[in-house]
């Protein structure tokens, strides 16, 4: 379920919000299905991030919602209306493009006013609206500049203001921050989050950057191979990945391969390939003798805690100091390479090299059948 962050309290600049529903949407190019049956209901005012590796179908899905591509099968609805064949200009959308797509022949004001002019908004109203938008992005002083005279971040803001100026029902964002450097990117993420919350518009945001997705989204929809792999809040995806792909794609994961030796009331004893025996819950479809892959987040491994539910022996390879934490690279019986994320407080207890006991709680292990896709 979507996590609604007080949608009702937002000062709404936009009243004409709408929900967007995708019903078994398919896009086929020749023999290749790029999108293979996507079901997704986006509520009014919700910020949904479509996340996935390149080629997963997220951009195609967004472009179908925008109306640039017609679905091969299935339905796209805005509110109750099926919009499959409705041209983009009639869908009342705002969109921010990866390359910003600002009109180089128009000033900042001109760009922001574009959609208002196309909608024949009276001049006085238009001017007021452009000024409000300029204030929103703090660029009143640059109203007369041309896009080529702006920095990347400024262009990005103008693109957002242009998309919101005519109060569209839905805002679409196609990897809008991809071209910015890391620091600016994070700044823009905060800026965008601020504006989106204050406007309260239904937003669909495409990115391949999981950190960006976690920072922005009410709900993250992870796509892979043309289908939705899992949808949910960032927390749900991180803590309860539905597949090995999600565990891999969202955050970092240590993977242990092993075989189920004994199965008792949902708890299994698993013999890792390195020889250690661990205890954990397994999914219902796993039977005794099955091969499984067990996943543990780096921060859930505890150095020297042989007293926890499970413990394995590992050899320290190297450590990386990251300021607020330390990453320790370890080797498990010469097989799997694993990462331990330790707080600064634990630093003193870590040996420089040599062997180390890693403990972890049963609840921090998630197992998947080894036959599962890894994406």
């Amino acid at each position, binding site marked *: 379920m979507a996590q609604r962050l007080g949608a009702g309290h937002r000062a709404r600049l936009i009243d004409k919000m709408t929900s967007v529903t995708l019903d078994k949407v398919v896009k086929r190019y020749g023999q290749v299905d790029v999108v293979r049956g996507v079901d997704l209901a986006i509520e009014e005012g919700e910020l949904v991030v479509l996340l996935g590796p390149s080629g997963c179908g997220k951009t195609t899905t967004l472009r179908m919602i925008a109306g640039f591509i017609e679905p091969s099968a299935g339905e796209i609805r805005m509110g109750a209306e099926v919009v499959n064949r409705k041209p*983009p200009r009639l*869908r009342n959308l705002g969109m921010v493009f990866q390359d910003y*797509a600002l009109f*180089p022949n128009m000033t900042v004001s001109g760009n922001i006013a574009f959609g208002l002019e196309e909608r024949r908004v009276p001049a006085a109203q238009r001017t007021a609206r452009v000024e409000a938008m300029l204030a929103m992005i703090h660029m009143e002083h640059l109203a007369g500049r041309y896009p*080529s005279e702006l920095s990347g971040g400024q262009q990005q803001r103008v693109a957002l203001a242009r998309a919101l100026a005519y109060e569209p029902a839905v805002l679409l964002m196609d990897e809008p921050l991809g071209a910015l450097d890391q620091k600016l990117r994070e700044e823009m993420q905060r800026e965008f989050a601020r504006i989106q919350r204050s406007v309260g518009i239904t937003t669909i945001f495409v990115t391949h950057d999981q950190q960006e997705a976690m920072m922005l989204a009410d709900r993250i929809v992870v796509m892979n191979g043309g289908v939705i792999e899992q949808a949910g809040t960032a927390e749900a995806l991180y803590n309860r990945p539905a597949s090995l792909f999600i565990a891999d794609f969202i955050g970092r994961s240590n993977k242990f391969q092993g075989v189920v030796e004994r199965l008792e009331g949902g708890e299994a004893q698993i013999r890792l390939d390195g020889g250690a025996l661990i205890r954990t819950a397994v999914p219902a479809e796993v039977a005794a003798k099955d091969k499984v892959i067990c996943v543990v987040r780096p921060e859930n491994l505890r150095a020297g805690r042989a007293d926890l539910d499970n413990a394995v022996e590992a050899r320290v390879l190297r450590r990386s100091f990251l300021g607020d934490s330390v990453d320790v690279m370890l080797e498990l019986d010469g097989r799997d390479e694993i990462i331990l994320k330790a707080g600064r407080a634990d630093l003193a207890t870590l040996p420089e090299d040599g062997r180390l006991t890693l403990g972890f709680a049963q609840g921090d292990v998630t197992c998947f059948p080894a036959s599962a896709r890894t994406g």
Partner: protein
Amino acid sequence: MGNRRSYDLALLAALLVSLVLFVLPLFFFLRQSFYENLGMGLVGDTPSLRNYADILTDPFYLGVFWRTTRLSAVAALIGLCIAYPTAYVLARSRSSFVRGLIVLLLITAFVSIIVKVLGLTVLMGSQGPIATLLRSLTGSSASMLHNEFAVAVGLVQYSLPLLVMLLFGVIQTIPRSLEEAAAVGGASDWRLMRRVLLPLSFNGMITAGLIAFNMNMGAFTSAVLLGGGNVLTVPVLIQRKIVLDVDYPVAAALAVLLSLGVFGINVGVATLRRSPTGASRMRRATA
């Protein structure tokens, strides 16, 4: 270093050969325009502007210049109108087959003008498919050849491949996302064209149009073969002055005036070009 040096020397040699083959004869030809014609290739020995004055005060010559300019401009404009949508489709197509058509276009650009004109002669003649169709519809039809219309068609046909290729390059520099942004913003195709595509390709169209215009101004074959002796243009007049009257001075003066006219028109039209993006403003600011 040594290699570089010999390479430069080779270039220098090529330059000298070009000078000798091209610039020198041109110089001697044009120099004649200042002398009186004594017939059979002989010229007088006191330089004057007499030939120029004669041409510029003669309504006949002025009429020929006007006709040439008008035909060239109309043909360039028609060419632009046909080439733009064609180039647009080629530039925007994702189909590799369609984009492969540009290679075909390139090949047609190498086909001799004579062959192209002959094709048009068959197509537009009174026995051609168009006339035959008209005849079956209306009961009567005539040849469309041997008039200014036919010459204009020939000029358009000749410059079209080049125009399409030039505009193809221009349109490719306009990101497709601009069109999508305009569509999402509520613009119809017509508004998109007027507000985004045309302003952004305006300079490219001016350049391409001028190139086609210049080609048209110098076009001889189309005017002769499709005009059927009915369309006197400056190049035809120059050829007749040389072949018929053996009057090199007036021919040279006509050539000089044609070049000056073309140059002036190019300079004049090029001032219509403008920076639609504020880029030049920034350059000025930083300079």
